[in-house]
């Protein structure tokens, strides 16, 4: 593949720059001319850059980063690669001549597995690479050169060394210090202690088993101890109970002897005694009751004799029932009679008081109709009113007459007081004269005032006229003088005129003043007439006033007289009407006198009161008549009752000559006595019945008790009470023995519960045997208890051990720790394994690569090296089978590379680089870029190398960058391009 043309849109210092490449081209430029940037641009086009690196080459003036590279490929022909920063993140777009577009992948395909890094290590080198060789240690140099021969890079050997070191730091099969070896030591220790702990924990099982066995033993032993202890206790009790057991046996024998049958009712004695005790009081009570019954019967018979016949009792009863009625009637009679008398007296008194000559009996005939009261009242009122009106009329007539007289007197008086006609006229004249005088005086006063004013004004006017005259004379003098001095004629004339005017003015003023004075003097003349003083005038006026007053009063009195006359006429008419009315009333009164003659004795003023008194009297009288009727009816009733009582007495032949109240009392006491008797009879009958009932009940109870007694006897198989008692005694004795026996049994049961004593009751053991047995047992128990204590101690110790183990987590801890250390080891081991693998991989690759390419590379290297050294060195030998890197001279002498001079080393390096790229270019035909690789070469060597370069460029595009003119000079066939 060749680069044909590069078009830079923008890349570092290059903007819109095109450059064409031939098969061999030498690009010359000073430092900073942009050689390196151009190289980078080619790399960028071929392999692309990551964004950050791209950004570094953004032109300073801005714009896009990118460009296109036109390539020629044998298989594909011409195609161009275009990359710009913006498009697809700097991905390549390839255009083939047939107009197709391809992407990055297609480009990669063309590059045949070459990456930028591999490309740089193989197809590009610079003077910097040469500098690196100087740093190599002498013994490594051969290996380094070999590495270069294989990869173009010095790294392989360095890496191999580094990996070796790392491996050594991690692990050495028989070392102590490396990390893994140390970790192994740790693990060994952990493992050992883990085993120990594990072994320890394993004893747990054994200890637990022995603990269980021990517990079993202890349980069994405990049971035995309990058994022995129980035995001991029973022995001790047996000893204690020996006397009681003896008693028991004795009673047993006694009871066996007395075995006959003693039938006797349960608690027989007591029951018999009870029956008897209950029977006795009942029997005595029965006797008392019988005696009482007889007494009651006797008393009852006596009472029946005292009781009277029923008919008599009924009669007496009916009389007494009516007694109250009788008493009420008599009382009422008495009361009515009293009222009657009172009433009669009252009416008679009233009649006397009225004194109108009426008797009690007359009252029955008088009757008052309903309107009467009103009529009488009317009459009375009319009479009174009439009287009043008559009086008033008379009084009025008298007054009117008096008034008339008065008025005439007044009139006369007034006529005397008034003035005669002539006098009045004279007086009026006097007043008129006075008024005229007054007016004249007033006018005079006013003209005096005016005169004074005029005088003042004239004086002022006179002064003014004088002053003006003086002024005119002054001016006339001045002008006169002036005229004389100047001798101007018209000035004389003026002086003359002024003088004339002044004189004229003064004369005129004087005249008007004189006229005015004259006028004033005329006005000031006073007037004189008849004089009337003020006092006189006032007196005249008084007289006139008085006269006028009298005249008007006279007029007034005359009017009053006329009115008086009219009133007197009216008064006389009224008097006539009243007299007619009086007559009518008299008529009516006479009618009343005729109907009720007794009225004549009553003044008509009291008629209304009299009417009321009479009305009341009549009412009283009617009441009196009613009372009389009542009295008669009551009297009749009383006499009837009397006769009935008398009859009753006669019938029963009781004493009759007694007052009625006494008789009634007798009947009442008879009835009371009879009631008491029958009461007693009832009482005693009741008592008797009760008595009989009680007797019956008691008899029944007695019978019941007797029956019970018989039953008791039958049960005891006896007939009499004595026999019964005898049998009871025998039974008592037997019971006592039994009780003693029970007591003994109780004691035994308390000592040996649940009938254990029975086993001792049979066999009779003596005290000594028992004591011997007891001691034996005691000893056994003590032994066993000691054994037990020992076992408990053992168990406690075991328990502690087990608990300690249970609470310990040593094993657990170690286990976790061990696991972690083991993990650490594994991690380290993996790390080691990776490095180890890497190293082996590297070695293996080297070996293979060497087999494949090394001989070819060495051949080419030898050729180039020979030419570069001017045939001084003929061949180059790669290291093989522990032989180092060697070179052979013309004379066949071999040198180790580290024996070569610096210059020769450089030549060897260049030869190797050219050789490897030559070898690789068979597959990867990519252009070779050299950047001042021959900086330190002299001109001969540059010439030699240029020959080689030109030779290579025939097959393989070569792009040289240099700043050395010598290099350019050495160029024969290469195109030379200068960078500005």
């Amino acid at each position, binding site marked *: 593949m060749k680069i044909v043309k590069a078009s830079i849109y923008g890349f570092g210092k290059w903007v819109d720059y095109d450059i064409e490449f031939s098969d061999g081209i030498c690009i010359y430029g000073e430092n900073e001319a942009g050689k390196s940037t151009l190289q980078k641009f080619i790399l960028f086009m071929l392999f692309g850059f990551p964004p950050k*690196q791209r950004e570094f080459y953004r032109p300073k003036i801005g714009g896009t980063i990118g460009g296109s590279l036109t390539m020629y490929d044998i298989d594909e022909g011409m195609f161009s690669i275009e990359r710009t920063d913006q498009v697809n993140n700097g991905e390549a777009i390839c255009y083939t001549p047939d107009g197709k577009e391809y992407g990055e992948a297609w480009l990669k395909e063309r*590059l*045949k*597995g*070459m*990456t*930028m*890094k*591999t490309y*740089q*290590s193989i197809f590009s080198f610079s003077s910097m690479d040469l500098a690196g060789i100087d740093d190599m240690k002498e013994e490594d140099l051969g290996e380094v050169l070999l590495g270069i021969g294989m*990869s173009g*890079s010095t*790294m*392989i050997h360095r*890496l191999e060394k580094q990996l070796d070191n790392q491996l050594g730091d991690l*692990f050495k*099969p028989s070392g102590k210090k490396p990390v*893994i070896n140390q970790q*192994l030591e740790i693990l060994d220790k952990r*493992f050992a202690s883990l085993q120990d702990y594990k072994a320890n*924990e394993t004893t747990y*099982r054994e200890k*637990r088993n022995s603990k269980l066995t021990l517990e079993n033993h202890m349980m069994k032993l405990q049971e035995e101890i309990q058994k022995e202890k129980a035995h001991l206790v029973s022995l001790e009790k047996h000893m204690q109970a020996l006397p009681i057991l003896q008693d028991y046996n004795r009673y047993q024998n006694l009871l066996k002897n007395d075995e006959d049958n003693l039938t006797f009712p349960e608690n027989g004695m007591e029951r018999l005694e009870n029956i008897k005790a209950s029977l006795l009081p009942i029997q005595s009570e029965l006797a008392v009751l019988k005696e009482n019954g007889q007494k009651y019967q006797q008393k009852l018979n006596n009472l029946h004799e005292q009781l009277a016949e029923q008919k008599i009792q009924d009669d007496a009863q009916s009389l007494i029932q009516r007694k109250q009625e009788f008493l009420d009637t008599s009382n009422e009679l008495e009361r009515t009679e009293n009222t009657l008398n009172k009433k009669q007296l009252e009416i008679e008194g009233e009649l006397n008081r009225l004194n109108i000559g009426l008797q009690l009996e007359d009252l029955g005939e008088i009757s008052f109709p309903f309107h009467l009261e009103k009529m009488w009242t009317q009459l009375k009122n009319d009479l009174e009113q009439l009287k009043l009106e008559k009086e008033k009329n008379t009084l009025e007539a008298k007054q009117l007459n008096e008034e008339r007289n008065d008025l005439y007197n007044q009139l006369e008086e007034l006529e005397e007081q008034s003035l005669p006609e002539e006098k009045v006229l004279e007086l009026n004249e006097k007043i008129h004269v006075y008024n005229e005088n007054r007016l004249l005086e007033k006018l005079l006063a006013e003209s005096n005032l005016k005169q004074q004013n005029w005088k003042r004004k004239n004086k002022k006017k006179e002064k003014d006229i004088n002053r003006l005259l003086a002024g005119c004379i002054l001016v006339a003098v001045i002008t006169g003088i002036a005229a004389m001095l100047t001798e101007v004629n018209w000035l004389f004339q003026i002086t003359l005129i002024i003088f004339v005017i002044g004189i004229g003015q003064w004369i005129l003023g004087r005249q008007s003043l004189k006229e005015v004075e004259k006028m004033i003097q005329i006005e000031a003349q006073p007037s004189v007439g008849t004089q009337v003083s003020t006092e006189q005038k006032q007196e005249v006026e008084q007289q006139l006033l008085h006269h006028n007053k009298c005249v008007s009063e006279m007029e007034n009195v005359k009017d009053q007289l006329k009115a008086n006359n009219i009133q007197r006429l009216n008064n006389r008419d009224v008097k006539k009407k009243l007299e007619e009315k009086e007559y009518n009333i008299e008529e009516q009164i006479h009618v009343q006198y005729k109907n009720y003659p007794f009225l004549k004795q009553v003044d008509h003023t009291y008629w209304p009161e009299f009417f009321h008194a009479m009305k009341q009297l009549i009412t009283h009288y009617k009441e009196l008549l009613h009372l009389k009727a009542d009295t008669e009816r009551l009297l009749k009733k009383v006499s009837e009752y009397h006769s009935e009582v008398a009859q009753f007495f006669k019938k029963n032949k009781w004493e009759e000559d007694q007052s009625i109240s006494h008789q009634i009392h007798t009947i009442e006491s008879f009835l009371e006595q009879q009631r008491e008797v029958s009461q007693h009879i009832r009482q005693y009958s009741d008592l008797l019945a009760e008595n009989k009932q009680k007797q019956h009940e008691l008899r029944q109870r007695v019978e019941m008790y007797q029956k019970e007694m018989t039953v008791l006897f039958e049960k005891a198989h006896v007939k009499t009470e004595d026999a019964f008692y005898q049998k009871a005694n025998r039974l008592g004795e037997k019971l006592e023995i039994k009780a003693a026996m029970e007591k003994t049994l109780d004691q035994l049961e308390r000592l040996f519960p649940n009938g254990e004593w029975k086993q001792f009751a049979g066999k009779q053991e003596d005290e000594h045997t028992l004591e011997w047995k007891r001691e034996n047992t005691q000893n056994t128990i003590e032994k066993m208890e000691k054994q037990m204590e020992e076992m408990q101690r053992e168990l406690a110790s075991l328990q502690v051990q087990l608990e300690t*183990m249970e*609470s*310990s*987590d040593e*094993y*657990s*801890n170690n*286990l*976790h720790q061990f*696991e*972690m250390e*083991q*993990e*650490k*080891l*594994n991690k380290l*081991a*993996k790390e*080691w*394994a*990776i*490095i*180890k*693998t*890497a190293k*082996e*991989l*590297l070695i*293996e*690759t080297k070996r*293979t*690569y060497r087999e494949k*390419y090394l001989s070819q590379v060495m051949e080419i290297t030898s050729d180039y090296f020979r030419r570069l050294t001017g045939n001084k060195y003929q061949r180059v030998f790669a290291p093989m089978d522990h032989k180092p890197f060697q070179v052979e001279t013309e004379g066949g002498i071999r040198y180790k590379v580290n024996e070569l001079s610096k210059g020769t080393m450089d030549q060897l390096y260049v030869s190797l680089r050219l050789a490897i790229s030559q070898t*690789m270019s*068979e597959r*990867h035909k990519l252009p070779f870029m050299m950047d001042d690789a021959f900086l330190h070469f002299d001109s001969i060597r540059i010439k030699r190398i240029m020959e080689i370069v030109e030779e290579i460029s025939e097959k393989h595009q070569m792009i040289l960058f240099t700043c050395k003119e010598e290099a350019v000079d050495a160029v024969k066939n290469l195109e030379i391009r200068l960078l500005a």
Partner: protein
Amino acid sequence: MKKEISFMHAADLHLDSPFKGLSYTPEHIFRDIKESTFNSLDNLVKAAIQKRVDFVLITGDLFDNEKQSLKAQVRLRRAFEELKRHQIHVYLSYGNHDYINGNIHPVTYPDNVFIFPDENISDFIFKKAGKAIAKIYGFSYENRAVLEEKAKDYKVKDRQIPFHIAMLHGSIRSNTEHDVYSPFQLTDLQKEPFDYWALGHIHKREVLKEKPPIVYPGNIQGRNRKETGEKGCYHVVLSETDINLSFIPLQAFTIHPVYIDVSQCEDLYEIERCIQEEINSRQLTGNELIDLTLTGRSTLRQWENDKLLEELVEVINEPIAYAQPWKYIFRVVTEVKEKKADIELRKGDHFIGELIRQVDYVSVQANVKELYHHKQARRYLVQLTNEEEQIMKEEAKELLFNQLFKGGSE
């Protein structure tokens, strides 16, 4: 009264079994991790008491016989005693890790604990208020492995008892991830009318079927980096009409995988910031071990090789490990994205191309014998799996790349 029972279903307690894959932690976190299985067990007891369950089912693998500690047994006994104080029964069967014949510590449990005595399927009757209300079936492993299809032998007896619960420690036949013991197929479990299948053995929680429930509760505490997230037991309430399952977390700490893409980070400081952001972004409910995977460019590997990443993680761990609750990054793995270049390089005739081609032929096993067959180291080392070998090759290759290109222009 409504017929109802409630119980806890747990399995695979693996008490006191060490955490796998932990090479270093601060002392206090190590202590927490060490105690974690016991704390989870305590949580189980507390939950059972709090929920007032009738009984607790534990389906096998209560501890590991191989690394059995007395502490595990004693703590288990204490837990059972606590349950007894609250009248809660325990029904347990032994599994492949705690098989009866391998038990070296015969600790006696209180009488509220009912253990299936042997490999024959037997049953216990649970009585509530004097009435038999549930029958619990199961068996224990007598030896390390049970290979018969035990599930087919489970038969419901006494059908008048309302509830029938089967306990089975084993796995589905098709399971390839674990040792297949007492293999079964789902259809085997549905033949008989059991109300609940309390399974054990698989550490990942899974409800295989809803009706009737066939449940792996998983283990109660994550024991290695693969056992992530919440771990615990199921609280089950069975009534005649309804089944209610709820998961109750019991773990003392969770294992949390964190993946962070740091390919945009230019240097270690940025990576540190990225990691801290990611770690602090989540609200913690409990202690947490973090399994960190970083994805980035090849420089990441270089930092890893130079131990810089390790130091960085130490710095990040410093504060969070002492917080309450604590977080701790216990493992860091790096992944490199740039794989595409390999394919290109592989085609080249140059040295790198040759190197890549050589990766296929190189054998890790052969090269690491020196250590992995070393007589002292051998017993502590876990032999490498093929997968690990492959990863190692890749890492070795990347190591070489990074070094060879170091100093090259980039």
